[in-house]
């Protein structure tokens, strides 16, 4: 318990204390700084887009992994986990080698906003898949058979029977991937090119504050990031409850 507070609680509260030390003016100067605001906007919008993409793609991937059978499925199962275990800086390098300069397939996205999306999609891939998969495995096909025998089309069965059961898992995964998306640093630092106002994300901005010795601004940005992450997690939880009630 002491270890936990020394390691996690005290350092995190130190950030908040440090940030509030400068009072409201620190936040104000940060939020009026065009570069920082652009970075915040870019990060949050990209993370939202990627979270939506993950909710769709992650569910489909989980679906194929659970319900479909084909040779090589075990390999796919392994591939899903690679982004989680791979060092983030290497993830950036890896993406850069295929989608960067001298790209063998002629797609160059480095130093554009697409690269931010690409890197975020890479690192957040496992979250929705891994939360939906176990739920889908538990789900009995009996209910689906029943729905089908009562004349529901496949799409209706999916929408009315399967999807409601998956919703909590999808949203839990989405919350994780959003939080990861806005906080990503390593994968983005190489590929995004860090152009202020265009491709610079918040964590890169934060790091440059730190390197410049501006700890107070860094702490304030960090607090904003923590708040956004918290807000997103709570919001997703609320949406999930509402959807679950209606379903």
């Amino acid at each position: 318990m002491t270890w936990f507070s020394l390691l996690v609680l005290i350092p995190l509260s130190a950030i908040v204390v440090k940030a509030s030390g400068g009072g409201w003016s620190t936040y104000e100067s940060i939020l009026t700084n065009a570069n920082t605001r652009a970075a915040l906007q870019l990060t949050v919008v990209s993370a939202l887009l990627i979270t939506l993409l993950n909710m769709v793609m992650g569910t489909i991937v989980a679906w194929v992994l659970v319900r479909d059978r084909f040779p090589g499925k075990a390999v796919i199962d392994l591939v899903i986990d690679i982004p989680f275990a791979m060092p983030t800086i290497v993830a950036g390098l890896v993406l850069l080698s295929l989608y960067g300069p001298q790209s063998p397939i002629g797609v160059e996205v480095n130093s554009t906003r697409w690269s931010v999306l690409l890197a975020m999609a890479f690192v957040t891939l496992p979250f929705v898949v891994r939360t939906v998969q176990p739920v889908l495995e538990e789900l009995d096909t009996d209910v689906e058979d029943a729905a089908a025998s009562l004349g529901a089309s496949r799409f209706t069965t999916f929408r009315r029977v399967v999807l409601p059961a998956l919703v909590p898992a999808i949203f839990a995964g989405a919350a994780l991937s959003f939080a990861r998306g806005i906080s990503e640093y390593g994968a983005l630092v190489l590929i995004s090119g860090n152009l202020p106002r265009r491709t610079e994300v918040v964590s890169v901005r934060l790091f440059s504050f730190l390197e410049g010795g501006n700890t107070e601004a860094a702490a304030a940005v960090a607090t904003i990031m923590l708040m956004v992450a918290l807000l997103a997690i709570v919001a997703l939880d609320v949406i999930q409850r509402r959807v679950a009630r209606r379903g």
Partner: protein
Amino acid sequence: MASAAVGTGSPVVKWVLRLLVVGYLVMLVAWPTAYVVKHTFADGLTGIQEALADPDVVHALKLTAQVAVLAVMVNTIFGVGMSLLLVRYSFIGKRALSVLIDLPLSVSPVVVGLALVLVYNGRFGWFGPWLEDHGLQVVFARPGMVLATCFVILPLVIREIVPVLEELGDDQEQAARSLGANAWQTFWRITLPGIKWAVVYGVVLSLARALGEFGAIKVVAGNVGGETQVATVLVQQKYQNFEQQTAYSVSFMLVFAAVLCLVVVALLRPKDGPKEGKEQ
């Protein structure tokens, strides 16, 4: 009788979904990863040999391994203790604690680094000056790097152990205690064998994560080549200095270690799965 469940019929839908998933994963993960391997071995083994001849690289790899192993050890001991606390005892604030455990997963590594610097910095940190007076420099030195790694991998062991502990129940532990075993014996003979595999998965996963930690360590360790530079930071530096071959070689080693960890977990899991099934 054929099941009418969704996804078992309509071959068209099935193939479309299959192709979609495989295509997405290949474009996003598999192909780029394979490409690094290709880059590394473009001139056979010379790339790796050259990289290993660079003292900075060797030092960074050694340091990474040391920090990772140390952090994983500390984290494992703490994780087992914390899981026991969370499952076997009830106390005020337990729910809050279990939510807080997951916090490191959603905090940016740069923020983690900043937090640790603020508290343990030798000049203006909360505990830093006191620790430094007692001869322990934390930030810009190894203890800080181990701390940062511990922060990041904190939830991994706990998340693996807690469900297993809950599943096991405490019948056997109570039996052992009623037969006169003390707490230590109960833990060593009854609890630990039960959660053995969960601990192993947790350790392997957190090892993979620890080897690859970048943002937090970069902030905490500073970036002194040959001193506190870990492998991931080295990759960035080499890449930016246009020593791409070295960067790719070191990346390959890190990816190889990460994939190896995953394969170990994947191989261990099925062995344990059926056994658990039988017990139920």
